[in-house]
Structures are given as C-alpha cells and as structure tokens.
C-alpha cells in the first residue's frame, strides 16, 4: 500500500494498462498541452514509452467519441476524456445510438470496448455548464455500463476493469475526488462491475450511495454513531449493472433506507433504487425510503446559491433522522 491521490491512482491504472496492452490509447482535448483537465494525463505518453498513443483532439466531442467507437470496432480500446460531464451532450448520438447499440444491433458482430471519463459535480462556482451529474441518463440505455468510483483505490481498480472490459463504459468522476488521497494497493488488481461494497456495517439504517457521496456518508455516519445510531453504508460502485442483491439484503436487515446523490433528485438514480426497494423489500421497510439529491435547478454560480445545491454530510445525517423519525411516529 502507498498513499496516493485519486489523480495519481487513476494515472497508474492507465499507465499499467497501456503498457500491458498496445491497443489501449487515450484521446482528449488538451491531453498533452496541460495534461488534460486536472492534469490527469501529464506525462502519460512518456510513462508508457509511446507518446503516439496519447492523442490531442480538436474541440469536437462528436469526433472524439465517434472515432473511439470506430476504433473500438476495429480492435482498439480507447480511453476518451470529455473534460466535463457537460460536454457529453455534444456526443450523444455517438454514445447512445452508436457505442451502445452496435453490438446488439449487428447481432454480436461488433465489440465496442471503450471508456469515457467524465469529471462531474460541484467544485467551486463553475456554473451550470461544467457541473452536472448526468449518470442516471446513461443507466437508461441498454448496452452502456456506468461506473462512479468513490476513492483513489476504487478508482484505480474500477478504471482497470473498465479498460479491460469489452463494453462501452461511462466513467463519472467527481471533481472533488481528484485531490483526494488514500491507500492504494501496489499490486495489479481490478474491481468487478455490479458488486457493491459495504463500506461500513450497521444495524439501524442502510445508506446507499456512490461516488463522492460515499465519503460524505461516512462523515455523517460518524456523527450518527456518536448518537448511538448505527448506519450501514453501501457503495454501489457501478450503476449499470448495479448490485440489487446487496441493497435488498441490507435493507431487509435494517428496515430503513436513505439514498443520496449529488445529481438532481428528480429522476435521479435514487429513484431506481427506491423503486426497487419498494417493489422487492416492501415488507421489510419500517419507514419510507428517503431520497436525497440536488434541487431541480441548473447549478447557479453565486456561491451562496451554489451551496444550496450541494449534498453534504449534514443532508445525509438529516435524512437518516427522517428515516428514523418516521418510524418512531408510527
């Protein structure tokens, strides 16, 4: 183990995979000039001994993603970086119609192994065009896989799986993660998709989260523990596929569920989780599922307004109290 930032851990994942497999290449705007957004690619070409596999793209998201689909169908494994999740809509046809459907539509002839990295979430006052959390959109599209890592070690293992995986993968990384540090194993490891991680075991309530929200849930759990409330925290890791069994097992144990994400609450992935719990674990519920997400507005720039859109440990803390309070009202 060594202590690394998320940026370093995911850099290592790319470096190791690109050295291991000559068909992996990375393409993005400004990838060489300033190492891509957040400097996540600085020195990658030299580190793998093959600068030709780190390609500076024009500001043309459709060709960046579309060319990756064509290259993947020709036998390569592209890593695409879209800088900000809000650049994704410029390449929606390429993702939703081409990458997602080619394998199925062509009866299994095509293979589209590619990863689209997309930093997202509120950092500081970047406003509505650089901040959205759009993961739920892509969980609605058969053929895509959606990953939302939560720590440096998780990021490394999940990114390696995404690169080796033969399907198109959307890889959403919260901007707050980039500088986060943590213990990262030295050895080569991958993390399977569709297997949630129980981050903290608990008796009283299941807190189901992913991405940056995992660390915020842990913070909330500490405060709750001081009050004698024992929260179980589940990190979904991947949203498509997602680990329904782990969620249902936890909710059946605790009888209460709080679901939280930074994405807008309306039609967020929390709705899918809540509905699944209602359908399949209704009898075990002691209280309604509490769903936490951002309000239904584009993210405003003014710092005081932006703060109102954040989902922070205190929101999860309050959510748990609501889950418990409703039960005590009965």
């Amino acid at each position, binding site marked *: 183990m060594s202590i690394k930032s998320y940026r370093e851990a995911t850099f290592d994942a790319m470096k190791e995979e690109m050295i291991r497999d*000559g*068909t992996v290449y990375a393409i993005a705007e400004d990838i060489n000039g300033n190492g891509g957004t957040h400097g996540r690619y600085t020195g990658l070409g030299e580190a793998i001994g093959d600068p030709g596999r780190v390609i500076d793209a024009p500001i043309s998201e459709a060709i960046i993603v579309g060319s990756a689909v064509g290259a993947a169908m020709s036998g390569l494994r592209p890593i695409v970086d879209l800088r900000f999740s809000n650049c994704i809509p410029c390449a929606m046809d390429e993702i939703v119609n081409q990458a997602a459907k080619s394998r199925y539509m062509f*009866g299994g002839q095509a293979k589209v192994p590619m990863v689209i990295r997309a930093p997202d979430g509120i950092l500081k006052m970047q406003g509505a065009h650089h901040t959205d959390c759009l993961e739920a959109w892509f969980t609605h599209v058969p053929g895509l896989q959606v990953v939302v890592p939560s720590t440096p070690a998780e990021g490394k293992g999940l990114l390696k799986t995404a690169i080796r995986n033969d399907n198109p993968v959307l890889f959403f990384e919260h901007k707050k993660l980039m500088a986060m540090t943590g213990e990262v194993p030295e050895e080569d490891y991958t993390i399977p998709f569709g297997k949630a991680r129980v981050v903290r075991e608990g008796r009283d309530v299941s807190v189901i989260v992913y991405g940056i929200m995992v660390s915020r849930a842990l913070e909330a759990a500490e405060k709750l523990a001081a009050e004698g409330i024992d929260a179980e925290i589940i990190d979904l890791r991947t949203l498509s596929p997602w680990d329904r069994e782990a969620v249902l097992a936890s909710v059946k144990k605790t009888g209460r569920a709080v679901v939280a994400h930074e994405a807008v609450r309306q039609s967020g992935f929390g709705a899918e989780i809540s509905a699944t719990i209602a359908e399949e674990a209704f009898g075990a519920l002691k209280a309604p599922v509490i769903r936490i997400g951002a309000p239904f507005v584009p993210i405003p720039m003014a710092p005081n307004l932006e703060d109102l859109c954040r989902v922070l440990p205190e929101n999860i803390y309050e959510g748990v109290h609501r889950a418990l309070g409703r039960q005590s009202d009965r």
Partner: protein
Amino acid sequence: MKVSKEQALKFYETMCLIREFETSVKHDFLNGEIPGFVHLYIGEEAVATGICAALDDTDYIESTHRGHGHCIAKGADVDRMMAEIFGKKTGLCKGKGGSMHIADFSVGMLGANGVVGGGYNLAAGAALANKMILKNDRVSVVFFGDGASNRGTFHEAANVSSAWKLPTIFVNEMNQWASTTPYETTTAVKDISDRAKGYHMPAVIADGKNVFEVYAAAVGAVERARAGEGPTFIECKTFRVEGHFVGDPELYRTREYVKENAALNDPLTWFDRTMTRKNGYIDGVIEPQELEAVRAAAKEKIVKAKEFAMSSEYPDPDQYTADLYL
C-alpha cells in the same frame, strides 16, 4: 481509365445484383412480406460498385440507411442479407438489425446507420485506429447523401481526417434529394464537394451513372490514402429513382420528373449502351447476350436469396437479450 473486360463484367454483375435485390425487396415489402422500413438504392448502383471495387476485404466501409447496395458491393452474402431484411435468425445480424442496421464485419462492412450522418466519425475512427495505432494501410470509406452532408459530424470527421492525414474516403452520393426535400432548399453549394476545400482535402466529381469514372476516382483516393497522404472527397452525381422509402407517396415530385431523371441517370442502361459498342473503357465490346446472361444469373441468385430468407426462421425468443454485453 481502361479496365479489362472481365473487370467490366464484374462491375455489371454487382450492379445487376443490387438492382435485382432492391427490386425484389420492393416487391416483397409492398406485398407485406418484409417487416419494418426499407430504403432503396435503385439508380445509384454504380456508386457503391465503383467505390468498393477499389477496396480490399480488409478495408472498411460505413454505410447509410440506404445501405443494401454498399453491403452487396463490399461482398456480403446476399442470402444472409435478405434473411436479415426479413428479420430471420439466419440474417447477417441474426434478425436484430434489419434493413437500416445491416452489417457484415467479415467483409469490412461496419454497418448501415439509421442515423443520417452517423457514419463519418466511425469511419474516421477506424482510419485513426489503422493508421495511428495499428500502423497498417487499411482505408475507410464513408458513404453519405447530400442531406447528410449538412450534419456537423461531416465537418468534425473531415477536419480530423485532414489534420491527421487519415485514410478516410468521403463518398458523397449526390442523389438530389434529402428525404423529401430537394437539396437546394437547404444547401447553398451546388457541388457538395466544394466543402472539401475548407479542409484542404482534394475533391473529385464523378458521374454517378458511369461505374468506370467512379472506380477511377476511388482508385486514386485509395492510392492516396494508403500512401499516407490523407483523405479524399468523391462526389458522385446520381439520382434517387425511388421515393425516400418504399411506400413513400412522393407528393413532392412529379412522375414525369422522376421518369426523365431516372432514364438520364440509370447506370445499367448506360452500361448496356456503352459496352455494346466501341468505347474508351475496355478493349472491344460486350455482346448483348453476355449482358443478358449476367442479368439472368443475378435474378436467379436473388430468387434463391428470397427462398433462403423465407425458409429461415425468426430468432428464438430467448435471443432477445443475447449480444447486449460481453
């Protein structure tokens, strides 16, 4: 450009096969035997034929929703193509693609595309892969209509193909009609290939009924691409004889207009007329009975393809979830 008589007959064979295929599909669709939605390539046969004749099996093409002709010209098996259009499990895509999403990766046909202008970026990506990473000399062709040339994707793919000298060949099928809209309603340029200039890309205009002219343009573009000199734009002036789709009432144009332009632009009658007398494309001539024999063989092949499709079964119900993920 002169070719051998064998090569000329091969062109004719491909064009007749496309014409017979499309005629059969039209008949069977109107009869209610073919499900879904079909767009025919009748009148444009010389374009796919001339372009694909200049390619190897290992080269790639990206096709359009009017893609049967491209698929046949690239060498796909017509039995499995027909089965696909009928939605049968013996089809190239096991019945899941149908006419608008037909593909045969075994011959480098990376797919028709239901999204107009959806193919450019994929073709440029295959070109990028082959030139920049795999370092071989395979080329990628993208076919597109005059309507699709107005998509932004054309410009994004043209820009990188030229900037990185990718082996992408842009083949514009200028068939005068963007769905039901005459191209000049939405497009200021008379020649779509004018747009190549903006990307420092050489452009050639070919007479789309003349398979030899199309072939010559393709040979030049392929040579340039394989030599690492970058993309070429080939504009083929042609005419869409049928409606946008089979069943289109064509309220937007007159029968006389269609009849006149179909006759003026038909690649098969042009070929018959040109080859049966002294010409600049082959040494000697092709006898009318030789042409008739090719036509008859194509017809027979398509009759058999339909029999194959009709006698095949629909996919097993348990296949509806297959081939989604690996």
